[in-house]
């Protein structure tokens, strides 16, 4: 349970030395309770108090890390039920499944998809995170060979899937240095799997049948000193799985119930045989609280929408995504193509560039850095006015690409056209439509 300010105060030195930056221990305690301060700011706190406090001040949903280096995946650490309350912190990992009973060609094809299916969007690389390696054959040597193969062909994070500790140990022999997630400790093998996780300093997943059992198992793992934990309630129907996701998060956040305060792992492929349906179920788990989503397989047509949805849902509502400033060439423009300017709010960019593409009119779009604000907002904030747009366009290098001197501005900033003509001598400023949806007819009749 989280401590109140007064409870924390009782554990502090009560010297009011002020070295933490606030004048009294009480004020510091209140800041700690509100998560506005770190305990390390107090140089005099006792070790005993430190232990009690760090336990109490740990985030209600612990983070877990799978893998190492650049591809290490951090999940969990969530603080809200609804993204508008603050933001969702760590996007869930997406995994593709391979099994030691699949033939080589199938495994190779999946590893190839894992490697090649990545997408650029708003300056970010969207790609899957994990490869789940399932021991179906029951043969430890075969499993180990597959783990070695996966390791050699990919730097993605690894999930080792078996309920047999000996087989997990064989997989670990090949991949312990990659800090794979062990899936899973169950009520029947808990001690052995916990030992493996401890010896190899690996994250471990717990699978239970139901939330009560899940909580009792994580308590055992925590008691064994493990913290890097991922949980599976065992639900394999869509309704029960959603309900469990909601209850896990809400119990952890609203009741500060530690035994369920871990990121979760889900298997939509175990809820349907239809790959299309599986992708739709995965889309539900992206919005509702999964920490890792293991897909039985994916293709470009299913992975791409999931990756973009994940990007959308995990965008910080207070910090809209922005597109890079610069000249964007759409539909192969030549020197007579129209030139438009817009803001760098990523949504503005996607909608405007999408409409230009739809119009099939070869065009240049100059995207001005407006700190991620939309046209109207940035204009109102003085970040998208003539004295800013004019010089930026003249310096952008666009004059080497076009023969004419005509600039189309968004209808919403029509008021800037006069000042822009002053900022850009010799240019004709043309007022485009207010709504990007009306760009097609506008562009079709535009003449250089």
């Amino acid at each position, binding site marked *: 349970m989280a401590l109140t300010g007064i409870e924390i105060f009782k554990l502090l030195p009560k010297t009011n030395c002020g070295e933490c930056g606030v004048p009294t221990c009480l004020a510091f305690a209140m800041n700690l309770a509100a998560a506005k301060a770190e305990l390390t700011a107090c140089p005099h706190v006792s070790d005993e108090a430190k232990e009690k406090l760090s336990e109490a001040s740990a985030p209600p949903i612990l983070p877990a890390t799978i893998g190492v280096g650049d591809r290490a995946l951090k999940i969990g650490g969530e603080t809200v039920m*609804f*993204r*508008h309350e603050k933001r969702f912190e760590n996007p869930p990992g997406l995994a593709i499944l391979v099994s030691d009973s699949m033939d080589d060609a199938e495994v190779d094809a999946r590893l190839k998809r894992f490697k*090649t*299916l*990545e*997408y650029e*969007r708003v300056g970010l690389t969207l790609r899957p995170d994990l490869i789940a390696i399932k021991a179906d054959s029951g043969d430890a040597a075969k499993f180990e060979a597959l783990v070695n193969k996966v390791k050699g062909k990919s730097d993605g994070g690894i999930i080792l899937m078996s309920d047999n500790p000996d087989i997990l140990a064989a997989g670990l022999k090949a991949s312990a240095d990659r800090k794979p997630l062990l899936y899973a400790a169950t009520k029947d093998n808990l001690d052995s799997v916990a030992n493996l996780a401890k010896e190899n300093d690996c994250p471990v997943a717990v699978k239970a049948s139901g*939330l*009560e059992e899940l*909580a009792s198992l994580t*308590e055992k793992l925590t008691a064994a000193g493990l913290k890097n934990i991922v949980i599976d309630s065992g639900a394999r*129907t*869509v*309704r029960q799985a*959603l*309900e469990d996701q*909601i*209850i896990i998060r*809400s*119990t952890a956040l*609203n*009741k500060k*119930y530690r*035994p*369920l305060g871990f990121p979760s792992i889900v298997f939509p492929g175990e*809820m349907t045989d239809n790959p*299309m*349906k599986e*992708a*739709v*179920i995965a*889309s*539900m788990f992206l*919005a*509702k609280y999964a920490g890792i989503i293991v897909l039985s397989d994916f*293709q*470009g*047509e*299913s*992975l*791409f*929408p*999931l990756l*973009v*949805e994940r990007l*959308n*849902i995990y*965008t910080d*509502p207070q910090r809209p995504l922005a597109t890079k400033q610069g000249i964007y060439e759409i539909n192969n423009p030549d020197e007579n193509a129209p030139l438009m300017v817009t803001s760098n709010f990523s*949504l503005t960019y*996607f*909608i405007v560039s*999408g409409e230009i*593409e*739809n119009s099939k009119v070869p065009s240049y779009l100059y995207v001005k850095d407006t700190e991620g604000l939309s046209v109207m907002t940035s204009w109102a904030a003085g970040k998208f006015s003539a004295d800013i747009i004019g010089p930026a366009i003249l310096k952008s290098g666009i004059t080497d690409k076009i023969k004419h001197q005509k600039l189309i501005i968004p209808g919403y900033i029509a008021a800037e056209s006069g000042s822009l003509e002053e900022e850009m001598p010799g240019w004709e400023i043309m007022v485009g439509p207010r709504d990007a949806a*009306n760009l097609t*007819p506008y562009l079709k009749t535009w003449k250089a």
Partner: protein
Amino acid sequence: MPFEIPKTAYSGKIKEIKLGKGDKAVTIGGETAYPFYLFEGEMPNLPKIAMEIYDTPPEEWPEAALEPFAGVADDPVAWAQKCINDYGAEMICLQMLSTDPNGIDRGADEAAQVVKKVADAIDVPLIVWGTANHDKDTEVLRAAAELCQDKSLILGPVEEANHKKIGAAAIGYKHTVVASTPIDINLAKQLNILLGNLGVSDDLLATDPTVSSIGYGIEYCYSVMERMRMAALTQQDDKLQFPIICNVAKEVWKTKEAKISEAEDPKMGDAKKRGILLEAMSATVLLLAGADVLIMRHPEAIKLVREMITDLTAK
């Protein structure tokens, strides 16, 4: 340590409204908990899917979206009947694309005749959706409201700029109004109040928060809808307790990601499946945020979303 499942403190309920008339009328709303939080409350009426048809043959659709409607895309009546008979549509949404002043700009009276023909030919509820041009929608929806006065149509989008004129026609001829605002909870509430003041009764009002596709700002409408449900259910904000209608299909299928062929960009995979998944996933995200009616297009996307609704509410 045993655990206690936290319960959300609900104090409100989404208003229940009836769409259409007769045996095939549809009731929506009535929720007493967040979407699919069935361990906390009820969803007495499952979310419904309206299939969209167009009053003029669509030009920019990818092949995957046109294929299921081959042979009927130039005949709104046949199209609507195909949706009902072949694809089991419980509702139809007639998109009045031909009336767009930036496009064909068909006159209001002629457009209303098409609405009448479709309304006469079907017995499921009919949503009539304009082009979000205030003046033109006013003419078209008023004409349709008058011509179809015994049909209990659902008219949208009704925006602040034209709510009085369309609202008055809806009141006069007993149609349902869809109050449409641009992704903003305060504007949504404001328009619901204005329509209430005008005399639109609560059982003839639904709300459209303006939705978009995955990749095109779905997170904004997702959060606005979640906030609307929160205000409606936990803060007794009765001006936000109206059922939500999401006109999502056209937003999905106009994106380049739904259109681009696999040959052009092999990493994007099969174009048909991708379009279907973008539609079904966008719809699923909106369902989780509180959609009561989804306006959808592709029969296979609809099938997937219907299955999700069934699974999410399975006993």
